[in-house]
């Protein structure tokens, strides 16, 4: 049906191109682009000896305006059913751009810096990444134009797109049953794989830490539907609990770990109790306020937290009492002497990796199981409709409080791991940005999707660690991704919601045939 309407619209539009409307739209976009870029892109303040100087970058502004003009024109043509001019004019240009970028990659790979630099000097903008983004967007537009010519229809309805994306997500979820164990097996063997080096292992520890944080926050945001913008506060409480107990009272990591979780959960309950009655968006802002408050307190309570100096020399974890030191003190044994191994510093890293992997898996398992318990069901029901829940006798405040407390507890566990891994913590590590990163992982992965969090953590944390050049664009991309995903697929990338419980469970064979007939 959608195909037919699209075709007829195409036929109706053929030959009648409203040039004035097109120029008007493109001109307006160019004007907006100009206004957006002329100040912040057009001028640059730089420090020079004796003060500040204003430099101009008007060439970049001009490029941005032109891109806005022609890009909008291409989109207009596509929308009105004229993909041919877009493909004919735009296609070769895009191809040229891609070839230039490919040449740049090739020269860089071959080590020919001079050639690569001469190519880059021809490109607009100082940053190659911006050019890449532009290239990707224009490839997208050109591909859509070519596709539109072949299919003789340029529009995909929202329902079609949504259904397709949901189908993919459902497939992923179905495969997830097999992918999960496979991933776990891979993760368990990971440190011993031949290509894994120290740096890779270090990044993996970081990625798994964020995975755990993502799963912890997923309980609060994904299951209970409470937007928590101050999750990092509980991370901080956990980290500082362990750091203080470990340095002041000389307690071991394993003793402190439950205590740190308990402290964070208590903080969660104390903070949550007065505010959980608030409506969703107010709650979000208040949690953000709490997150900042805890950071300000950590920063200024010098006697206990040593303020901006942070706490250093936090004890490292031990393997059942065996430390990972090269030379253990007289009369004690360390990990390698006990097992009769050669000493390598990687041992500790592998141990940390397994430690955080175990903690993350516990979080994951806990979440999956608690979803099936009454309290988990109550969370999800509360997320869907609070008024209905209340009328059915679910106590919203208590139910939300458990979600908040449990989420905070896992945040605290992760925090104490962070402290023991770093050996040094300061309030710098617990800013709002950190909360936003964790939230971005949950949002991108799809609320409530455990597999989505893994994918998002690898993409958001792992990739920028590898490509250092990407790092400064990381937060920019996070922000953009959060907006785009919410606009395109508000439920998250890999979100596919099956009812957790059915009144009449589908019988075995029907369950098998249903997806097949859909294909």
């Amino acid at each position, binding site marked *: 049906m959608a195909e037919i309407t699209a075709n007829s619209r195409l036929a109706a539009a053929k030959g009648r191109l409203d040039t004035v409307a097109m120029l008007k739209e493109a001109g307006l976009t160019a004007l907006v682009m100009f206004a957006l870029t002329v100040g912040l892109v057009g001028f640059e303040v730089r420090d020079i000896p004796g003060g500040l100087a204003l430099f101009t970058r008007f060439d970049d502004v001009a490029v941005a305006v032109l891109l806005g003009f022609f890009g909008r024109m291409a989109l207009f043509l596509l929308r009105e059913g004229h993909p041919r001019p877009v493909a004919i004019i735009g296609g070769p240009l895009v191809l040229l751009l891609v070839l230039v970028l490919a040449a740049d990659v090739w020269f860089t790979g071959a080590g020919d810096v001079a050639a690569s630099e001469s190519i880059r000097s021809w490109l607009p903008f100082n940053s190659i990444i911006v050019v890449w983004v532009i290239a990707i967007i224009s490839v997208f537009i050109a591909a859509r134009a070519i596709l539109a010519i072949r299919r003789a229809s340029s529009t995909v309805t929202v329902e079609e797109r949504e259904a397709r994306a949901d189908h993919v997500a459902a497939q992923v979820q179905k495969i997830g049953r097999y992918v999960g164990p496979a991933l776990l097996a891979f993760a368990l063997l990971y440190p011993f794989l031949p290509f894994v080096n120290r740096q890779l292992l270090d990044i993996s520890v970081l990625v798994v830490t964020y995975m755990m944080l993502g799963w912890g926050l997923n309980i609060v945001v994904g299951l209970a539907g409470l937007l928590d913008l101050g999750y990092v506060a509980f991370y901080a409480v956990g980290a500082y609990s362990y750091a203080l107990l470990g340095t002041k009272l000389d307690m071991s990591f394993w003793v402190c770990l439950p205590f740190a979780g308990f402290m964070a959960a208590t903080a969660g309950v104390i903070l949550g109790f007065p505010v959980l009655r*608030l409506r969703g*968006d107010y709650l979000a802002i208040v949690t953000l306020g709490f997150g900042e408050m805890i950071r300000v307190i950590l920063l200024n309570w010098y006697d206990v937290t040593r303020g901006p100096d942070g706490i250093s020399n936090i004890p490292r974890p031990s393997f059942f009492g065996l430390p990972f030191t090269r030379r253990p003190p007289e009369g004690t044994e360390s990990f390698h002497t006990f097992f009769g191994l050669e000493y390598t510093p990687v041992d500790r890293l592998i141990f940390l990796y397994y430690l955080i992997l175990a903690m993350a898996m516990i979080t994951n398992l806990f979440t999956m199981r608690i979803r099936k318990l009454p309290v988990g069901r109550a969370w999800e029901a509360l997320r869907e409709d609070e008024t209905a829940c209340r009328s059915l006798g679910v106590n919203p405040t208590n139910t939300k409080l458990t979600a908040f407390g449990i989420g905070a507890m896992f945040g605290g566990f992760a925090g104490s791991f962070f402290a023991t891994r770093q050996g040094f913590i300061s309030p710098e590590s617990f800013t709002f940005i950190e909360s936003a990163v964790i939230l971005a992982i949950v949002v991108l992965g799809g609320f409530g999707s455990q597999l989505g969090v893994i994918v998002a953590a690898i993409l958001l944390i792992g990739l920028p660690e590898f490509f250092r050049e990407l790092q400064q664009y990381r937060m920019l991309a996070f922000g953009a991704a*959060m907006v785009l995903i919410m606009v395109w697929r*508000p439920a998250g990338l890999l979100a596919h919601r099956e009812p957790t419980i059915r009144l009449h469970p589908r019988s075995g064979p029907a369950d098998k045939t249903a997806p097949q007939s859909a294909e």
Partner: protein
Amino acid sequence: MEGSIHYFVDQTINGLTLGAIYGLIAIGYTLVYGIIGMINFAHGEIFMIGSFLAFFVFLGLGLSGITWVPLAILCALVVTMMLTPVYGWTLERVAYRPLRGSPRLAALITAIGMSIFLQNYVQLLQGARPRPLQPVISGGIELMRTVTPDGSPYVVGLSYLQLLIIVLTVALMTVFTLVITRTPLGRAQRACEQDRDMAALIGVNVDRTISLTFVMGAALASVAGLIFVMNYGVIDFFIGFLAGIKAFTAAVLGGIGSLPGAMLGGLLIGLIEAFWSGYFTVEYKDVAAFSILVLVLIFRPTGLLGKPDIEKV
């Protein structure tokens, strides 16, 4: 010294200046909340962009030798009030309009995404370092003079800059109130606030009205940015975050959705912050603002001048 009336007057003037900034930003929050019921989390970044644009104008004029102060301020005002609203307009068009009708949390997440995006946009283009600006206006009126216990003179004055800030804010708020209460645009806005579907049925262009609301909010925030640059003289890409949260607190305190409430809330938050830093500790002044936010939301969610919010099922 801290007990004297002079110190008190000094802090009051500081608080009013600060309150003017918060009030101007808070209007943007309150308008948007009133009309589409969402927290425009990225509004603080609009303020930050406004302050950057004003900074460029002042720096550019200063470097090219134009030093006549009224001209510089006028130029900065015109440029920021013309360019910053485009950011507000784009923000609504790109991030909020596609989500109209979806749950509040979805819109809040895009707003946070936009806020992070704009912060990093400015950081990438202009660097992370704070940028200082020479004072634009100097001098002032002496109000009181006294002698501190250790013999040095203590002068309480109203600087010309503070005078300008107060005059500018009062003028803008007057114009703005007139726009809302007397013009067709204001009428359309009030209609959309009451019932968007009904307003559309009787011929109000709802999309256009909402866009213009963002434009107006952004224009006021850009003036706040201009004031901020002139008053504090140091800006960086991160100033929008705290200012935004405090202005939101001001809007909530005054009763979100209410215009006079936003102004009142802004002044109160400014005064509270000034007195808190003057009489207690500077370090915890942000905690004070957040505590007020939490307390108001718990005990009086409708704020001082707000109407009760009835949840329909």
